């Protein structure tokens, strides 16, 4: 007998999806051509009768391959290993390509762009050799390390498939207890949640020429990823993009468009805090969850007292709200809810400055239930930033001409790569589900605390 449980194991289908526009090569290969010709002639004489020996080149990646070898090096193949320049310092020089500095901006750095493009192309976890190359710590997310456990942790197997690590999170209203009337029927609030399979939702795409295709890509990717795409209500209406995976976002100016929504959404978001509109929204969509989108430094208490149970806390694209960084603000919001005794009842989604896979577990450790992804998604779709991309309006980005299927696959690849990296982090800690990571600051280490402990008493420290 077949048991129809409706259960399916969550899986993201990845597929190699090449870039539409090749990113600038990482390196410039500068060859002194006359010296090269001289070298070849010298080696032809030295290895008389052994043309293969004389013509064999140092590069194992094919940069100096046919038809004309070093006279027209294939820069796009160069990985910067420096073997050629170590062997022939007088002939070839490898330089970082200055064009790459134009990728991303001061927050979403060129190396982040590289990583995101790799993830969006392949769906795979970036792996490289030779240890860590960056600064010791730093501001923001770089000043935080996640924990691991040496022993007692069977969940590591989850990464190789034997055991399951859940990345699902619940968004919604989760009362701490139920109340019943004399007849045993529940009265008062009952749990109303929707589950998404990854702790990422897709935040509003930037307005502009490509808005329609972007919105289609986001909505379809959210459907296939079993998560949510937050889309302005005017976009939902204009491009007929309803469905259970779309979360319309309504502002005061777009309020009248609610009439035109093709169906009741599973969840709808209100931009900014307005108690009257919040109540009106709940009344209009009694079956729907209602989220409130407010800046990350907002005081949540009055909203929670009014009954708000789902928040989308926003920082700017560099992770700041009111001059404070997301790490501090998320912890503040989380603690405020803990102090109110309501943390378990409320869902916190956060966005802004979460641009690398490692930022996700760190943001969750600080107190989020889920993150909303923004600029990283745009980079996956090969957006170019025009200067600094800090504020949503106007977001300074340009997209190439996009095809929906290509874009959906790129986002699926990116989300898969990030989910796999989340599994790595959870596995290292021995956690079986991402829900257990929320607010667990004991599972991370802050640079400032560790340094205070390690370097206390060393002359010059803390001065």
């Amino acid at each position, binding site marked *: 007998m077949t048991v129809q449980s409706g259960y399916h194991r969550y899986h993201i289908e990845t597929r190699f999806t090449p870039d539409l526009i090749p990113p600038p090569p990482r390196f410039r290969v500068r060859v002194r051509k006359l010296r090269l010709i001289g070298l070849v002639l010298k*080696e032809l004489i030295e*290895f008389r009768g*052994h043309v293969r*020996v004389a013509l*064999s080149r*140092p590069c*194992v*990646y094919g940069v100096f391959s046919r038809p004309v070898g070093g006279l027209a090096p294939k820069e796009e193949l160069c*990985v*910067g*290993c*420096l*073997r050629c*320049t*170590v*062997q*022939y*310092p007088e002939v070839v*020089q*490898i*330089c*970082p390509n200055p064009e790459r500095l134009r990728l991303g901006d001061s927050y979403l750095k060129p190396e982040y762009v590289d*990583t995101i493009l790799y993830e969006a192309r392949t769906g795979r976890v*970036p*792996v*490289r*050799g*030779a*240890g*860590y*190359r*960056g*600064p*010791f710590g730093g501001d923001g997310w770089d000043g935080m*390390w*996640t*924990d*691991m*456990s*040496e*022993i*007692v*942790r069977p969940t*590591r197997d989850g*990464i*190789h498939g034997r055991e399951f690590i859940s990345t699902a999170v619940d968004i919604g209203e989760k009362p701490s207890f139920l109340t019943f009337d004399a007849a045993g029927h529940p009265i008062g609030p009952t749990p109303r949640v929707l589950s998404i399979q990854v702790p990422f939702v897709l935040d509003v795409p930037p307005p502009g020429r490509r808005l329609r295709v972007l919105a289609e890509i986001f909505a379809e990717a959210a459907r296939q990823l079993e998560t949510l795409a937050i889309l302005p209500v005017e976009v939902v209406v204009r491009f007929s993009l309803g469905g259970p995976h779309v979360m319309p976002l309504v502002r005061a100016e777009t309020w009248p468009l609610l009439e035109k929504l093709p169906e009741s959404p599973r969840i709808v978001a209100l931009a900014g805090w307005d108690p009257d509109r919040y109540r009106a929204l709940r009344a209009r969509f009694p079956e729907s969850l209602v989220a409130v989108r407010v800046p990350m430094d907002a005081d949540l208490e009055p909203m929670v007292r009014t009954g708000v149970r789902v928040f989308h806390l926003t920082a700017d694209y560099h992770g700041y709200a009111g001059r404070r960084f997301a790490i501090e603000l998320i912890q503040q919001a989380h603690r405020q809810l803990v102090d109110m005794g309501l943390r378990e009842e409320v869902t916190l989604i956060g966005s802004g400055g979460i641009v690398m896979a*490692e930022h996700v577990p760190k943001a969750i450790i600080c107190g989020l239930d889920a993150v909303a992804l923004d600029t990283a998604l745009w980079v996956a779709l090969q957006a170019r930033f025009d200067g600094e991309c800090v504020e949503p309006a106007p977001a300074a980005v340009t997209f190439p001409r996009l095809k929906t299927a290509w874009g959906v696959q790129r986002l699926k690849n990116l989300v898969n790569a990030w989910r796999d990296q989340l599994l*790595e*982090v959870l596995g*290292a*800690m021995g956690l079986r589900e991402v829900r257990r990571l929320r607010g667990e600051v004991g*599972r991370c*280490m802050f640079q400032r605390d560790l*340094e205070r402990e*390690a*370097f206390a*008493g*060393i*002359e*010059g420290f803390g001065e």
Partner: protein
Amino acid sequence: MQVPLTTVDMRIVEKHRAALHRGFHVWPTLAFDRPPAMGDARWTADLILATWYQAETGRPPDNGLEYRVGASGGGFDVLDFKFLPKEKWLPEDEPIDTSIPLNRRPYDRRIEIPVPWYGAGMSFGSVSEQIMLARAKAAQMWRTFTCTGEGGYPDSLTPYKDHVITQIATGMFGVREETILRAPIVEFKYAQGAKPGLGGHLLGDKATVAVAKMRESVPWVSLFSPFPFHSVYSVEDHKKHIDWVKAIHPEALISVKVSTPTDIDMVAVGSYYAGAHIIHIDGGYGGTGAAPEIAKKNIAMPIELALPKVHRFLIQEGIRDEVVLMASGGIRTAYDIAKAIALGADGVVLGTTELVALGCTRCSNCERGRGCPFGLTTTDPELSELVDPDWGAERLSRLYASFQLQLRDILRRLGLRSVRELRGRTDLLVYRKT
């Protein structure tokens, strides 16, 4: 199948080997001309070239290359020593002891090494046999150790067995009774700094016939070392592991290699009570093999922050002088060695530094295509011939000589007669963050 190299192939190798050796010599002498694409915050171009220089000359560079610190903006790079005024330095002819014991327990075999470092585990498969040999030869010359890593024990290392640590890791690859019996020190690798909590992964391309045979696996199939040891769920289980090795080889000293979680101090104490002679903590910023980028930078703490925590906790527990604390994961220079010891280690374990001495440019392409283009982290038959074990051993030996020279100089300027006196002396450090 691996095909033996033809004469023409060998001539190609020889041509490139000669050109590479020339390059290793020339680059560090071009004092104001660094390869523009070389280096990063941790390993600056200067540090790489200075290491090449030391591997060639046996002394630190005097041509302006910065050979002491990198540019990471933290940890070792912002620590310096509070040297005594010159008139208080120890005289040049005063002997300064750089040796450390590897067993501080009142029982079991005494092993002392003349320098406070040995070589880190790098498995057969992740590096070539030539590299393993070069390291073993250097270890023998210096009466210190190198470590097999977890890929088994190639027979070619047997002549150097008194200087080879056998590693037992979660994959148990190549672990056999005779290799345990051969080893003066057996190292249990619980975790490694480059990928804390993630186990190991050898890509199929590197699992050649020879590698697979050694690991008793199938050629060209990727190999995973799981995480953690599935037989260890407590300190008692951990002790069982140690007892198992001691039952096979009662003479062996036991090292336990762990990463740096927030409770690293408790882990160290647990290992001590389980019977380890050496606790080897591997910070998150080192590692020679390929690792997910997310793991390298984000999971577990850097060694500079873990060392004082462990050292002080072992003191509080009253067991500091019964256990040897070795540190690894980002030790690049003689100054890093001295700083790690001042932060609380007895000695250090060198990995990347040795590969840099052998020509690594830290390009991070170890796993790409045929593997390391310099013949280090590869099993490609042609590329691995780029490193001749004797040449490699000489380079490592000269690097060690330079490190010892500098270490003695540091101790002399601090007024210390033995490296053992430096341990835990954070009062001799100064923090200089710009």
